[in-house]
């Protein structure tokens, strides 16, 4: 499950600039900075699951295709965990365990809550 297009492609912080050189092969190796959205969704989804006392066998791993982020995992009992953040509403996500949606709402609201002292 360790693919470059999965979760943590959050390059932010390490790189500053992209692109360089007149050489075609060099330019071909360079990609825009990206991935924060994926990382944010993953972190917020795990926060939601832990708040709901969901015990996980497989912690959700996430990928981004176009603007949509999807994550899949499973509970210790084998129930699928599904997280989606549609491109049309990139600031929102929904977290479902099996057929039950346990969260639908803003990603940043979850991140802010968990980064703050009670």
């Amino acid at each position, binding site marked *: 499950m360790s693919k470059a297009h999965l979760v943590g492609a*959050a390059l932010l912080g*390490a790189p500053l600039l992209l692109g360089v050189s007149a050489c075609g092969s060099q330019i071909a190796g360079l990609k*825009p900075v990206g991935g924060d959205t994926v990382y944010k969704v993953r972190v917020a989804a795990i926060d939601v699951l832990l708040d709901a006392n969901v015990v996980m066998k497989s912690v959700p791993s996430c990928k981004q295709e176009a603007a949509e982020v999807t994550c899949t995992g499973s509970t210790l009992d084998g129930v699928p965990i599904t997280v989606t953040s549609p491109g049309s509403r990139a600031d929102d996500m929904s977290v479902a365990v099996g057929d039950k949606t346990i969260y639908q709402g803003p990603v940043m609201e979850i991140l802010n809550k968990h980064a703050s002292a009670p």
Partner: protein
Amino acid sequence: MSGLSRRSFLGTVAALSAAWGIPGTALGAQLAATPTTSEALSTLDRTIRFGPVQRGSFRRLVAAAGEKHVARVDLLGRPADAGRSSRRRSLFYCAHLSDIHVIDAQSPARLEPLVAISPSLFQGAFRPQDALTTHVGAEMVRSVAGLRISQVTGAPLAAAFVTGDSADQVSQLETRWYINLMDGTPFVANSGAPSIYEGVQAWQETPWAYHPADPTNDVYGNYGFPQVPGLLEAAVSVRVSSGGLPTPWYSVYGNHDTLYMGTFGIPAGIKEFALGRHKYFSGPGVALNYVQDWAADAAGLTRLWNFVSANVGTMLGTKTVTPDPARKILEQEDFMRAHFETTPHPGPVGHGFTKENLTTGKTYWSADVGPFIRIFGLDTCNQVAGPDGAVPEKQFMWLRDGLTQAERDGRLVMVLSHHNSFTLENTAELPTQPQRLVHADELVSLLLSHPNVVAWLNGHTHNSTITPHARSSGAPGGFWEITTASCVDFPQQQQVVEIVDNRDGTLSLFTTVLDHDAPPEWNGDLTSTGLASLSRQLAANDWRATPVMRIGSPLDRNTELLLPAPPVVTSFTDAQVQSSHAADFARVMSWERGW
């Protein structure tokens, strides 16, 4: 010490006492005592979280409750045995540092005005805490040293690993400061004029920067950043003294240790400019045009870079600073060479790099640390261009052969690299020196094919992330990839990692996140410790870096990562474990006594 016979125990104590110059009675008492865990604070005891707004949008940081380890069974596939904690023995306890990003904020080689061109794109070109990185590094080393005895098992620290981006700008001075931090050599983090800060945070022509003396007219002041008279002067005049690591430390390359701005091949013009008397306060306005289409492909940035490269000699938009030859930009091999200019303790000289590395130019290494662990220190940096990484085929074949040999030698394996599996997709290569570049999937497959591989430690993304890599087709186990945060962006955290044998056919890898040792709440103190505290406070409010995201999830912080134990673990004797701990205790005690 039930594993060692009395005779072996006494012999071990005598030998170690003589080797480290410490009293045998003290060492013997330490070794004979029931293991006690460290009294130092980690995030098991206390965390740091956002508190109330102080001014505008600027929020204070406050101490919050600690976080216990959370068990992860992704690679086990079943609940962990509840009785494991009563049986366990520690095989290896180490610290993992990464992305320290020591910055010489006054260097003309820094192009901070790029942040004004595109704050989101060039976020790393300027941070409000740029001048404070050495003070943070010192407090982080102090924090690691404080955890020299494991909070989980009472085992002593056996090694520390630094997985790249130790410097920020391929700078000789930054690299020296970082090595001084690890070794505990005191220094003043200044360049140019003595005790005077010359740079963008002191110039009024830079409204995009934070001006601590008077932020009224800059974007940070508008956000609510505090006025801190004397901050910059303190940053460049207060002595930095970390106390040094109490354990041998090992290093690998990061993209900021080998590429300009972590991304570009180093142009000759920049080398000269770094040593000169001109520093940019303004980005070339025309450059804005070049970044318009950057997201579509790299052409816009290429043109921008070509423009900047061509104009570094024009002095347009520069102010005069005091030149300093110590600001030299390093050649690739200089980074390795710098690791041989080090104190004899904690060592080892070269910090993973050997004379062979200097002779051959090979930038990766392997080393045995203790009786059970073999480390492979990779250089995943693309030497051509781009912040992301890859493994050149020649290095990949070396790793493949080395993993096979480690298996024959009965050693567990930990792999170190700067890049993680999400950022190992760089395809840039020199047409004159074509070499196949191996990317994440193939590297992970190789590691999974060797049952002795238990962990891959890395950094690069400045976020704590823990990723399981499971064997496919129903084969048991796999390994854990552990990515640590940075010292430069919030939350300025690193970690300790411990491999524990549960004696039930499973291993647990404990990861414990460390805040640096400076107080959570800055109280106006402008000592080195106070500056580190303020740095974290500033970083927490640097909205461009999305700080609330960087805290990560509890499953990426204090964790117990379970996996089926590789078969070789059953061959490790208790006597070996205890001899190893004795050697590490002796070293720690020697550090406590000033070596």
